[in-house]
């Protein structure tokens, strides 16, 4: 009986190994590898942030597709390109576009951006698969302290502009630390007349949708997240906004990744604080007066 069980396990293991070896070449997210079968969308996921010894910061970004099946051969076939627009935040500098080299770690495509200054980074990734076009974007502020502009990207390329259509986050002063409860205003740049609604996703699960106005503008206020509120002040989550638009040339899927922290002042209760402040203050005043009255007698 035990021998039979062992044999079954061996056969099962051999099958799994074989399936695993064949899958990267043969499947696209569990489906047969036919060129017309492309991922639904791609998005930028935030990786670790490394503090370099010279004071500069390196942020890693992964380019991902649903079910994590974007590997090196696929990425190369999809003609993945990436670049970023950076702007020194303090003092305000000119907007510079820099192409980025896509690197691979165990087949997973990733990007590294390094900066030694307080900089606003607007990262764009574009790809094509058959007739489908993909856009992914994100915005992040980086607080580098080496004073150097950048160390690991290619030289600036004037006139670099994101390929349309794409989701554009309207700049705001509060974006250096994006939080739940904050209002984010987007514009679907270069899109068609009726792009529909933007899907809000977390961990590839749809959490809701946001309707666009006829001009392609929409606002999103991420709700407070109790898990973030209980975690460290620096903890974050990633929310992806997805817009898919059918065009005569094929489907366009655009995503925007928001790196959200817990709200700093969203849970503040001013009347309660003021009441406590006044009560304690009056309590001390009353205590001193009472002590003085007692000492008179």
């Amino acid at each position, binding site marked *: 009986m035990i021998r039979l069980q062992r044999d079954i396990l061996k056969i099962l293991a051999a099958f799994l190994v074989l399936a695993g070896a064949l899958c990267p070449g043969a499947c696209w997210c569990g489906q047969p590898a036919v060129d017309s079968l492309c991922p639904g969308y791609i998005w930028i996921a935030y990786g670790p942030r490394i503090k370099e010894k010279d004071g500069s910061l390196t942020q890693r970004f992964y380019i991902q597709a649903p079910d994590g099946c974007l590997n090196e051969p696929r990425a190369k076939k999809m003609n993945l390109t990436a670049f970023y627009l950076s702007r020194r935040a303090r003092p305000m500098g000119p907007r510079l576009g820099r192409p980025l080299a896509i690197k691979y770690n165990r087949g997973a495509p990733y990007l590294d951006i390094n900066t030694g200054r307080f900089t606003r980074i607007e990262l764009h990734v574009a790809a094509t698969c058959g007739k489908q076009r993909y856009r992914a974007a994100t915005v992040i502020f980086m607080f580098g302290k080496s004073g150097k502009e950048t160390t690991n990207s290619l030289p600036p390329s004037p006139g670099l502009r994101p390929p349309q259509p794409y989701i554009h986050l309207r700049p705001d002063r509060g974006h250096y630390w994006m939080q739940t409860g904050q209002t984010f205003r987007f514009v679907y740049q270069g899109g068609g007349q009726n792009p529909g609604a933007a899907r809000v996703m977390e961990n590839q699960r749809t959490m809701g949708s946001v309707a666009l106005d006829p001009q392609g503008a929409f606002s999103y206020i991420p709700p407070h997240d109790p898990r973030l509120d209980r975690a460290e002040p620096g903890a974050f989550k990633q929310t992806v906004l997805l817009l898919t638009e059918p065009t005569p040339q094929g489907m366009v899927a655009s995503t925007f990744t928001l790196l959200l922290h*817990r709200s700093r*002042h969203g849970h503040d209760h001013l009347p309660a604080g003021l009441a*406590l*402040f006044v009560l304690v203050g009056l309590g001390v005043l009353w205590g001193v007066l009472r002590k003085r009255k007692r000492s008179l007698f």
Partner: protein
Amino acid sequence: MTVKALRLITQHTMFLVLTYGGRLGISLGVALPCFSCPYVSGCGGYCYLMALQRKGWGLAMPLADMVSSRGLEALCYLGLFALLAALFNKLWCGWICPFGLVQDWLTMLRQRLGIREARLSWRNRERLKPIKYILLAYLVVVPLLIAHAGLSGDFGLPFCQICPAKPIMPLFAGITRHMALDFTNTVTLVFSILSVGIAGGMLAGMFYKERFFCIFCPMLILIHVLKKISPIRFEKQVDGCLGCGNCHRMCPVDIRDVQEQKTKKDVLSEDCMLCLTCVESCPQDKVLSLKFLKWPLFTSSGGYVARHFPMKKRAHAPDE
């Protein structure tokens, strides 16, 4: 012009610079040895206690960062603080600190209202003295625990979280949010209750007792440590002192060391904030003097007392 008037002008000028200077592009750095609260948006410089507790600039820095350029930056801030604290020593407290001026405003208001000051007995004052050491230990230990023992980041800036300047000073810039209770989680709620409660109690305490907060101020200890290398000296010619006790009676923080010192020249005690009220009120020529190295900046004189404290007023001075 009296020293008191000169001090008030300096205090008000520094209050404007440190509270609103940032809006005019003034930035005096993050290593100021006074309560120039960083929670005041548009302030002209930051209190060093904040930098000392911060992850990026002070004790909450992880070990790996300490050996990088960030560690060097933190060391530069410490050096700058030491330089500034040594250069002006306690003049920071009596002449520059914006939170000190707020306390002086409350004292002026109380005096205008004719309300008697609360007297702290010497024994009670001595009992309260260790609190500032406890606060200093607290602001040093908690950031270290965050950096090396995995304490939650919600405990970050532990002294700022309970400092009464945090809710009060931003009010001068129209910011009320630090008066709010923060219901994010239990730790933030407890800290906000402590912060607002301490601020309310301290404000009332500062109204009744001149420079009440200075009894608990941990910055005083840090500045006092640098007394030995400071060019600012506060000296007494012990032979000339008659022991009249004016210095003790007039002192806003009730220091009696100046009167009681019978052997040593140096009378700059830990709680002294160099307001020079004692020097102004000393009737003996050159007995008390504030010096920059060996050069006297201001010395006591009978003539000064006669001019600025006429007999009628002196008769009303509070008795021991």
